[in-house]
C-alpha cells in the first residue's frame, strides 16, 4: 500500500473532478494521507469565485445520462466529497505558487478548502515516496 497519494490536479473539465473526489475520499477512508497540488486549468475551481466546472465538449452526448445517473444516486458534488474527505482523513490541498502568481491570486482569493500556496519543491519534498497521480 502506498505511503500516501500525491495528486496533481491540472485539468479543469468537470469529468476530471470525479476521479479527484473518488480517489481522495477512498484514500481518506483507508487512512492514507493525500496531498493535492492544484495547478494549470484546475486553479479557478479552487478560488472563492469558483465557476462550475464544465464537461468536455467531446463527450457532451454522454453528459445528460451521466448527470441523470449521478442525480438518481444522490451523489454529492466533487467539492462536498473532497471537503468531507478533509474532515475525515489526512488531506491537504495546496495551490501551485507559480500559477497563483501568474493569475494574480493571493491566499485570500482562494477557497477555504485550500490549505496553502506552495512551490513544487515543497510539494515534492513532502510527498516523497507517495504514489503520484496526475489528473
Amino acid at each position, binding site marked *: 500500500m502506498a505511503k500516501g497519494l500525491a495528486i496533481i490536479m491540472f485539468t479543469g473539465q468537470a469529468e476530471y473532478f470525479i476521479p479527484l473526489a473518488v480517489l481522495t475520499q477512498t484514500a481518506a*477512508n483507508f487512512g492514507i494521507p493525500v496531498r493535492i497540488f492544484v495547478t494549470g486549468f484546475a486553479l479557478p475551481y479552487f478560488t472563492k469565485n469558483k465557476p462550475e466546472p464544465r464537461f468536455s465538449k467531446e463527450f457532451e452526448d454522454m453528459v445528460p445520462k451521466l448527470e441523470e445517473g449521478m442525480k438518481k444516486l*444522490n*451523489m454529492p458534488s466533487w467539492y462536498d466529497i473532497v471537503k468531507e474527505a478533509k474532515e*475525515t482523513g489526512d488531506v491537504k490541498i495546496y495551490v501551485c505558487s507559480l500559477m497563483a502568481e501568474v493569475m494574480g491570486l493571493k491566499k485570500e482569493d482562494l477557497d477555504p478548502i485550500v490549505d496553502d500556496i506552495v512551490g513544487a519543491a515543497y510539494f515534492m519534498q513532502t510527498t516523497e515516496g507517495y504514489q503520484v497521480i496526475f489528473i
Partner: protein
Amino acid sequence: MPEKIVVDARNMACPGPITKLTKAYRKAKPGDIIEVLATDPGFKPDVQAWVQRTGNELLELKEEGGVIKAVIKVTAKK
C-alpha cells in the same frame, strides 16, 4: 456491551458505502458488529479490501435480491 450498528448504504454509489462504513467504524467500540447494506456493484470487493486494510474481521458477505450485506466485527480497535 458490544453493539450492533446497521449502516444502510443502499442506493449509494462508490465511494459512498465505504465512506459511510468508515464513519460508523470511527465511532464503533472494540467488539461491536457493523452490518452494512449496499447496492453498489463494486461493494463486495471494496468491503473485502477495506477489511484487509483495516484489519477487522468479516463475518459474513452475501448478496440477496440485489442487496449486498456485509457483517464486520470490530477487532482492530484497542
